[in-house]
């Protein structure tokens, strides 16, 4: 039992304080001033303002949070009594993987967990994908979970339908270990605790939430949970993604944070956005999760990714035309679309151009593109 739980609950859920702001404050009192959170809350408002440089509004937020400490203590007591544990970011139990991956900017200050905490210190993978994934993707998920379980890697899953659920079920099937990352408060998961009772008792499942314990499921929470899944995993596998939605934005977010993300190479007949992710920098993998370093999707393959748009599907001719045009000078996407009468969205064209090694991006406003050195070779894409 962490005796400072009431304080951590207060600090972790300050309204409209982002993770970064909260974590900066924690770093200051915990690492710089070597204060416990309890001592920090005993400081005067004046100290908060002068030593910690907090603004009036922030001090007001903390004052309000301080008034709720007794109430939080009651909540914490209930949580501990029901077997939940609270793990603040300063605790040695806080998973290192999560902190390394998400850094101060994105790490939640407090985790609510139930189950075998040791699991959080193990090597881990996440398998993510659509809620309505194809059989093919589910088979891939099952296979990756099997391989991971064999290697004693923990499978992190978000407890959504489709790929998430498959990853969890498979890890359990192959006697592996899993972390369920909840899109809701941990006290609202009674049915799940009943369902996975045996696995939790046996130490094979840990349930984790970063939200106030009693909040019910919400779309926003599901979106906010995705980075936690990625953060908890040492490796990330994508079974299937469409070009929008949770998986898509999760992977894009991961790539932006320089994570290595493995994406299943889709079969030729699959209309999914996996290739688009590969083109964005994710690594293609085969059915067993082996990286296919040489694999580069063709533009037409990439375009299949754009499952939503069906008019004027761009094809190789367009690509040739684009490159031909770029050999002649610098152009903005708007100009390219106009000149070639493309039906692509500006964003799509911009993303595509950025992903092509042979295309140079000129950092002016608006962005302009041209061919590198104008010495144009036949690009591998067109082989």
């Amino acid at each position, binding site marked *: 039992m962490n*005796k400072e739980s009431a*304080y951590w609950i207060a600090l972790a859920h300050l309204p409209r304080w982002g993770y970064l702001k909260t974590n900066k404050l924690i770093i200051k009192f915990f690492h710089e001033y070597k204060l416990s959170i309890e001592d920090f809350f005993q400081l005067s408002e004046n100290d908060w303002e002068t030593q910690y440089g907090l603004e009036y509004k922030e001090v007001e937020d903390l004052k309000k949070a301080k*008034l709720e400490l*007794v*109430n939080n203590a009651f909540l914490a007591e209930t949580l501990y009594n029901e077997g939940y544990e609270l793990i603040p970011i300063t605790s040695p139990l806080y998973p290192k993987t999560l902190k390394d991956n998400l850094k101060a900017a994105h790490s939640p200050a407090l985790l609510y967990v139930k189950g075998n905490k040791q699991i959080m210190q193990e090597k881990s993978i996440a398998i993510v994908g659509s809620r309505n994934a194809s059989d093919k993707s589910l088979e891939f998920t099952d296979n990756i979970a099997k391989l991971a379980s064999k290697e004693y890697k923990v499978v992190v899953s978000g407890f959504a339908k489709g790929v998430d659920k498959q990853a969890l079920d498979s890890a359990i099937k192959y006697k592996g270990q899993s972390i369920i990352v909840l899109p809701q408060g941990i006290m609202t998961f009674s049915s799940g605790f009943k369902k996975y009772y045996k696995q*939790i008792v046996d130490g094979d499942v840990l349930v984790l939430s970063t939200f106030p314990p009693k909040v019910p499921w919400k779309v926003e929470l599901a979106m906010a949970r995705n980075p936690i899944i990625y953060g908890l995993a040492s490796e990330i596998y994508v079974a299937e993604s469409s070009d929008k939605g949770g998986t898509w934005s999760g992977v894009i977010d991961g790539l932006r944070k320089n994570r290595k993300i493995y994406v299943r190479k889709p079969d030729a007949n699959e209309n999914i956005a996996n290739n688009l992710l590969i083109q964005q920098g994710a690594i293609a993998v085969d059915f067993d999760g082996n990286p296919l370093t040489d694999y580069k999707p063709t533009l037409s393959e990439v375009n299949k990714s754009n499952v939503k748009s069906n008019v004027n599907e761009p094809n190789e001719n367009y690509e040739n035309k684009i490159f031909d045009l770029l050999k002649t000078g610098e152009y903005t996407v708007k100009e390219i679309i106009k000149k070639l009468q493309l039906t692509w969205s500006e964003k799509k064209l911009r993303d595509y151009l950025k992903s092509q090694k042979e295309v140079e991006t000129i950092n002016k406003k608006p962005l302009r593109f041209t061919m590198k050195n104008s010495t144009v070779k036949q690009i591998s894409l067109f082989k």
Partner: protein
Amino acid sequence: MTQQEAEIILQRTFNLSHFYDEQWITIEKILKGERVLLIEKTGFGKSLCFQFPAILFKGTTVIFSPLIALMRDQVKKLNSLGISAKCVNSEQIPEENSQIISDAKAGEVKILYIAPERQENSEWIEATRQMNLSMVVVDEAHCISVWGHDFRPAFRRIINLVNLLPKGLPVLATTATATKRVETDIAQQMGGNLTIIRGNLMRDNFRLYVIKVNSEDDKLIWLGQNIEKLPGSGILYTGTRVDTEIYSKWFEFLKISSVGYNAGLDADSRIAIEAGLMQNKWKCIISTNALGMGIDKSDIRFIIHTQIPQSPIHYYQEIGRAGRDNQPAYIILFYNPEDKKLPEAFIEGGRPSISKYEKVIAAVKNEMLGERNLMRQTNLKQTQIRVIKADLIEQKIIREVTIGRSKMFEYITDAPPLNTKTFEELRASKTRDLEKMIEYAETTQSRMKYLCDYLGDSSTHSFTNCDNTGLNKIIVSINDEWRQRLQDFREDYFPVLEVKTKGTNLINGVAASYYGVSNVGIALHRSKYENGGDFPDFLLRLILKAYRKKFEQEKFDLILYVPPTKSGELVKNFAVKVSQVLKFPISHNLIKQRVTSEQKVFENSILKSDNVKDAFTYKNPQEIRGKTILLIDDIFDSGATIKEIGKYLTNLGALKIAPLVIARTVGGDLI
């Protein structure tokens, strides 16, 4: 705030002129947001130490107290002073509790008394998230410690809560009875930064006596001869619930005004009895010590124990309720060296066997279970399950969680193995305590000093308030007249079978005797299990006497008997004899339609009920319609069989079903 300033407010709000030193020291610390453990004797004025600061604080003060009667009294007193105080407890209807909780949420309650068990109630927990709380008080704090005399598992959560409360929130723990060991244990559990304030425990208005006796008869007769001679009204503590019944029937027989009080009574009866006590309605209340009677009556003039308590601390706690007005109070303990068998049995039998613990662990490990299903799966008594459950929670092997509205037990991941060493330590410690209690009975020194020393209050004061130090010894003298009266009483007293339930036409029945208390049990056992032939005739005489006493006014159309599982025709033959004497027709048509197991195989009433459910049928059902029925059996234990048959016969149209049995067991596992 200075003491003078505080005392001005004290005068205005509580009509009291000043604080005692230790009261003010405590209050000063509380006002500064500190934590205090206050150990003071009953009647010292501990309550003022939290009630006074509570009225100064902005928000609500929550008092966790296990004693409902005490809560009620204090609330009444505070309300009469114009202080808004309320209590939430299981004896009020849920709507009333809800209203009080929402009043507290709205900041309309200054002082809120609440039972520690309430911490398991989601409505309360929900409310605590919005309440403005200013102080937390843990009353009867000795209940925190397994080394005390009244450990209560519900307090574990209160301790956890105290440990989670933020710095600067005042916490006061109070008790009247804590040995050094309990004091240390409480302090350790409540965490650092705790000030301990301990007062002296001496009660010089007590008149302490120990009456040496050789039998139960001696006790009954001495009380019969002398209780009316004692001043005022008081309490008679007995060792068991059955004894409570026997003593109150004895007093009833002697026309001594008394009333029985035990944990099995419903709330209304308890409230009525407590109110009656306040008005001196009876000479004495006869109660088990199982129920901590937190009665705030200042003029209890005597407290008598018919049975030696488990330890001096139990004893001190129980006698502590006498003479709070500082007028003389008679404190009498009957002591028969034989009596230590009962507390010894409590100590020995207080814990189920290790294999039963293992059984519960295995069941919970495999599946999340509620209490009822756990009883089904393990075939253990509810009382045993509760002991095991409390121990396993204490050892962090299982925990109790709330799923929806029901409580379930779950196994804790990576739980340690069962630690039996602590059981042995506890047992050894309890054995030592019992020896100390016997030493109290046998000592030739000052009894008050003995108790004070035991409680860690090493006073040098010389005491002259016991039968070793200035008072005359009480000697029991018995004559034939009293022997005869006791004999008459015994032949006139029959235990009641409480089976009356809503939805059936069962009425409460009667037994000829208790099973283990007389030679009746031995006779039954010989016939049933040692091929001793039909039940002997003295049982017939006895049961007919019981019948006449209870059912003199009743007429029955039909006699039925419970069909046997194993012991052949014994009950049938017996019932035939009863029918011949009473001249009611007997029917043999009540039969079993499926094989059942013997009820005694099952340890708890849930399995007993399962065993006999839908087991009976009647060959010629229209015979039953509109009839009044006398239902005969040999032994009445949980009552599951009688209730099942009663339900069945009611459905067939029986107007009244009255059970009549030879013996009733003691301590059935009733839910």
